[in-house]
């Protein structure tokens, strides 16, 4: 399951086996088929109109770049619609989470690539946020 680009030390991210492997395979099988999921391990699909932001060639997590073509297609892949145009349209159709498009999403934890976001949600691994990033959040709430 580990990819060549995965640089995690084995101790911090043991290869999924048994039940954990089953979760990973079910998540990947369903989400790849439905949303072309890229298994970033920290899923925010519901906040992005059910359009996977990791399909964006620039891996943008907070909205489209300025290069979107006038026909709504991607600057990098001009034959394909911009992931974020789809996210915006998708978010308007959602009964919940519409306002999540306005939320500032934290930077990607690249160590979680190819892991199960479901497992990471249950274990809280996807909630790991750099201390400096959290400091601004606390500032804002004051």
């Amino acid at each position: 399951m580990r990819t060549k680009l995965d640089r995690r030390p084995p101790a911090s991210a043991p290869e999924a086996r048994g039940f954990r492997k089953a979760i990973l395979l079910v998540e990947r099988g369903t989400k790849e088929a439905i949303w072309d999921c890229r298994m970033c391990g920290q899923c925010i699909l519901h906040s992005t109109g059910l359009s996977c932001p990791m399909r964006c060639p620039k891996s943008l997590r907070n909205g489209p770049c300025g290069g979107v073509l006038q026909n709504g297609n991607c600057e990098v892949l001009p034959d394909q619609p911009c992931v974020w145009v789809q996210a915006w349209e998708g978010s308007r159709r959602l009964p919940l989470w519409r306002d999540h498009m306005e939320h500032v999403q934290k930077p990607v934890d690249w160590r979680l690539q190819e892991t199960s976001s479901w497992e990471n949600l249950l274990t809280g691994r996807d909630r790991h946020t750099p201390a400096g990033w959290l400091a601004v959040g606390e500032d804002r709430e004051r």
Partner: protein
Amino acid sequence: MNGHPPRSHLHRLLASGQFVVTAELQATDSPDPESVYRLADLLRGSVDAVNCTDNSAAHPHISPLAAAHLLLDRGVEPIVQLACRDRNRLALQADLVGSVALGARNVCLMTGDDVTAGDHPEAKPIYDIDAVHAIQIARIMRDQGMYVSGRRLDETLPVFIGAVENPFAPPHDFRPMRLGKKIEAGAEFVQTQIVFNLPTMRLFMARCEELGLLDRVFILPSVYVCRSAGSARYLRDMVPGIDVPEPIIDRMEGVPSDRQADEGIRIGLEIVEELREMRGVAGVHLISIRGDESIVRLVEEAGLLPRPAAVEAAPAG
């Protein structure tokens, strides 16, 4: 805005309500400092600050930090552009500290044109973080005096944080909200994509006003000074995300080539005049391709001279 004391000349001018003029430095490919000095001498006194682009259009040029340093040598206030295409979060933070240490306290943070748009399409782009992340990281360094990891800087970073936004690219309805996200993350000023389409720009500004953004950020729309019909067509056909309406192309093509530069300045002047009337527009950002003389002429003909004198370097801290 934000109640901070001004951190740069540009910040001081904007905070005082002056209509500001910035320009884009023609990125050079020369190791000779004179190449930047010549442009600095040309622009000094005509504009308040000058953007040092970061491998613009994904073509390598002189580093923005080096160009900024050379501008400072000649008494020109720089705005250092930093793109996420070529740097991960470590490199970004290193460049932010370095930029301020050199005396370049204005930064403009963006995702960047993709490598496929440039002359090294086979390169590995970075995109570790996006522009909103970059802005918030700069804000963490400015307000908390720490890196995003939480490790402390020796002191807080007196940086004036800029962003970009493109009102002319889909999804149009989301663009004002996206600017709102950048403000939420920490952007204090924003330079927009080049404005030709004034009705779309007016809609964008009206929507920003509805969202309450106009009092939270200084907006500097970009104005392009066409030197020829060819340069207008180049923008339309070669640069992703720019909306050049046909009437502009027709106007440029409608005059003989020796008078096209004048027509380009006339179009630029008309757009500047319209922008000055829009609520929430804090200034303009002027762009040309190898047309720095045209920028100087436009500033003069728009009645934007003299520019307020730059005071001596801002006190440290």
